[in-house]
């Protein structure tokens, strides 16, 4: 066992603490709030879909600065990249962030974008580009990402082999609560890589003594102790190794390895009885675990070393039974995977119940195929493939629902058409009448307005004479004409009366002109109000008619196109999903096959060990009987009978029990 170093070991990082889609300011756009609502529930598809629509509409505006999304524009542009990253659309996320970088933005915004881009590349294990991106950061780093940026930079440096630079940063970061444990572990690994073993050991020792309530940090602490224990095993210091093995929690993720290791340390010291303590504990644990299966072989091995061959034989026998049963289970699992049950379980409703569905997959009833793939489930490639498959299943569901919706929309459109089409000609007729009436009124009003305006320029009182006054004026003109035609009738008195009446009328029309003009102006304004009402009715009518028409017209082609796209995408998705499913199945089968082969080898080993133990147990028994017969010959016959019976495995157990009593210290 050596203290091996691998880059993968350095990739340890806490769950990303920087909540980048969190709002940093007051909500000023209700639709952006809705996007966050979906994002906070990890419903990234809905969040991205809404954000795409909002940003699309925003950029299409003539004056986007007047839109309320303007207040969240920067945040929204970052959110696109973040949400796409969470939805594992790394290519698009990278482009979104690069777009921000390409703009003429403030230094802090640019640094944040560069950090996100570096993080993106790092997660895709593209360390060279990650380094290039992180080195785009110039000047002051925004406070909210300062420690995240430093830790990310250190990780990138480690990944590209700049260990001393990484050590400098990690040393500066020491004491940071967010990365507590991670800094110590990564620092120790970087020390190892630069051959500073003593510093590495000291750092791992420090990590192994950390007090924390965080499960992730505790797991890391266990991992550190395990590394150290293995290091001391390698260095031949059994006592130190035992000390670090004993620091590891019994209920942590490394407890099985620790128990197994502690047993081997005792074996190395030839203290087989002590080895039995951790191994017996391990022996009772979940039988599918590799360490437990090794313990099934190790425990009888220790018993045989203690000369308890009978017990060892029984335990080898039990181990063989377990291995055989597990091999059957593995065969059934492989068969079930090949039959497609594994993929069905992945997209089952139970797997959908919580965000830890990948982890909880193992809890699904009647799914033996998941019991042996715990380690595989934790592997990055498998998890990514699994999530992709799950996402594809969701997309498939979306496409099916949308296609069904299109059929419903067509029904709605048809119903609307049937309802509106017979009504529209009559409505159109009425509309035309109303339209011509409104136009007439508007023309009349315009003429009146023109006349009033001309009166303001050129005073013509007679234009504002009443109908009676006009009639009187006409009558007086006729009388004057009649008097001119018949001068006999034109007495002086008659002429005087006609002149007087003309004068009175003229006086009234001229003297009341101003009041009449004012009244006419007021009446025109009232008429404007009436015409406005008519116009409103007209516009409402136009809108209603337009809405009625638009409710069923102009959809046929877009719906047909959408249906074609949906079907094409469905076919494409089906192919990708099948390929993704096959990859998952193959990975799972390979893993199960690997475990099966290991169990078969254990089985062969156990068979030989069992035979050897029986042999030794029998020899011990014979030796004992011979000794006894030499002391009490009269009892020999009985003992021989008993010896004959020991040929069956059941009697072997009794014999073993006797032998065990004698050999156990």
């Amino acid at each position: 066992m050596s203290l091996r170093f691998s880059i993968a070991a350095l990739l340890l990082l806490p769950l990303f603490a920087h909540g980048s889609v969190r709002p940093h300011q007051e909500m000023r756009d209700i639709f952006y709030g809705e996007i966050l609502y979906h994002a906070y529930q990890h419903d990234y598809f809905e969040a991205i879909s809404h954000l795409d629509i909002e940003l699309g509409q925003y950029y299409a505006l003539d004056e986007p600065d007047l839109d309320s999304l303007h207040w969240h524009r920067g945040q929204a542009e970052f959110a696109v990249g973040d949400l796409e990253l969470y939805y594992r659309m790394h290519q698009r996320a990278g482009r979104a962030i690069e777009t921000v970088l390409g703009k003429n933005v403030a230094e802090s915004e640019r640094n944040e974008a560069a950090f996100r881009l570096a993080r993106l590349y790092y997660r895709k294990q593209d360390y060279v580009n990650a380094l290039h991106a992180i080195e785009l950061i110039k000047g002051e780093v925004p406070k909210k990402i300062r420690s995240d940026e430093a830790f990310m930079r250190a990780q990138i440096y480690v990944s590209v082999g700049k260990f001393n630079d990484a050590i400098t940063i990690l040393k500066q970061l020491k004491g940071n609560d967010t990365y507590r444990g991670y800094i110590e572990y990564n620092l120790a690994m970087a020390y190892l890589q630069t051959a500073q073993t003593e510093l590495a050991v000291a750092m791992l020792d420090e990590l192994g003594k950390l007090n924390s309530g965080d499960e992730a940090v505790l797991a890391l602490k266990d991992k550190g102790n395990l590394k150290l224990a293995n290091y001391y095993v390698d260095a031949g210091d059994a006592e130190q190794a035992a000390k670090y093995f004993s620091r590891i929690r019994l209920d942590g993720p490394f407890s099985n390895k620790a128990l197994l290791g502690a047993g081997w340390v005792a074996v190395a010291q030839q203290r087989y009885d002590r080895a039995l303590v951790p191994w017996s504990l391990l022996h009772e644990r979940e039988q599918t675990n590799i360490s437990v299966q090794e313990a099934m072989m190790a425990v009888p091995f220790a018993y045989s070393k203690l000369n308890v061959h009978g017990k060892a034989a029984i335990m080898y026998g039990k181990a063989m039974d377990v291995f055989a049963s597990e091999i059957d289970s593995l065969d059934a699992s492989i068969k079930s995977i090949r039959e497609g049950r594994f993929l069905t379980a992945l997209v089952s409703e139970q797997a959908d119940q919580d965000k830890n569905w990948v982890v909880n997959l193992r809890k699904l009833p009647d799914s033996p195929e998941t019991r042996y793939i715990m380690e595989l489930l934790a592997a990055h490639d498998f998890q990514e493939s699994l999530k992709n498959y799950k996402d594809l299943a969701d997309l498939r569901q979306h496409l099916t629902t949308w296609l069904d919706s299109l059929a419903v929309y067509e029904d709605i459109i048809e119903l609307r058409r049937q309802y509106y089409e017979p009504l529209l000609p009559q409505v159109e007729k009425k509309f035309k009448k109303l339209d011509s009436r409104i136009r007439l009124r508007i023309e009349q009003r315009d003429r009146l307005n023109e006349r009033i305006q001309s009166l303001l320029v050129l005073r013509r009182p007679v234009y504002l004479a009443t109908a009676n006054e006009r009639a009187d004026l006409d009558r007086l003109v006729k009388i004057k004409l009649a008097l001119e035609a018949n001068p006999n009738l034109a007495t002086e008195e008659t002429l005087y009366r006609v002149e007087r009446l003309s004068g009175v009328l003229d006086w009234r029309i001229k003297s009341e002109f101003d009041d009449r003009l004012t009244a006419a102006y007021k009446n025109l304004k009232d008429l404007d109000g009436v015409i406005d009402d008519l116009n409103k009715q007209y516009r409402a009518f136009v809108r209603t008619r337009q809405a009625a028409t638009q409710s069923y017209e102009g959809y046929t082609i877009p719906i047909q196109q959408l249906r074609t796209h949906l079907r094409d995408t469905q076919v494409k998705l089906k192919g990708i999903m099948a390929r993704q499913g096959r990859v998952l199945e193959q990975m799972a089968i390979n893993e199960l096959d690997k475990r099966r082969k290991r169990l078969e080898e254990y089985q062969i080993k156990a068979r030989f060990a069992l035979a050897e133990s029986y042999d030794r147990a029998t020899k011990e028994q014979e030796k004992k009987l011979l000794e006894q017969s030499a002391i009490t010959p009269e009892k020999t016959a009985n003992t021989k009978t008993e010896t004959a019976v020991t040929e069956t495995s059941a009697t072997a157990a009794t014999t073993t029990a006797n032998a065990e009593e004698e050999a156990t210290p």
Partner: protein
Amino acid sequence: MHSHAHKIFRQSLCIVLAALLSFAASANEVSREQIKGLDEQVQDIKKDVLNLSTELAMLEEKLLFPSNTQVSLFVSMHKGDDFRLDSMQLKLNEKVVAQHLYSFRELEALQSGGVQRLYLGNIKTGDHELVVSYSGKAPAGGEYKRSGSYRVTKDVGPKFIEIKIAGPESTEQDIQFRDW
């Protein structure tokens, strides 16, 4: 420091591992290139489906919720309010248009500043009465219920109303309405 027996035992395990490795090499292994290639195809199809989702959403809005009749009712909470909202009911013109029971995740999203569109529908232009009722558990324990009303004046354009609710320990008004 290992004992002879132990060495034999470990050696046998090494043989097993060697056998496993030779088997693994001959097995139908999944390559990283294969995984990467598939991942890129998955990303492409996600992009396609997102584009379709956008197109469909726009068609739906035009067909089902045209702007002249569209009304959207949003629910939000004051940030940091630890009131445990259980249920919400919305009535428009004395008719229940939306009822919702909140999951923990939804509540957390609201408390973090997310805004939920609880109702999207159609109404005529003019005035409409909106009645909001909600209930939940107060942080100190006990049932907490509130209700309030608001006159929605629908014009030609789409109507967006935010209903901001508060818990018993909040200093804010129980229900605040805002026209967007």
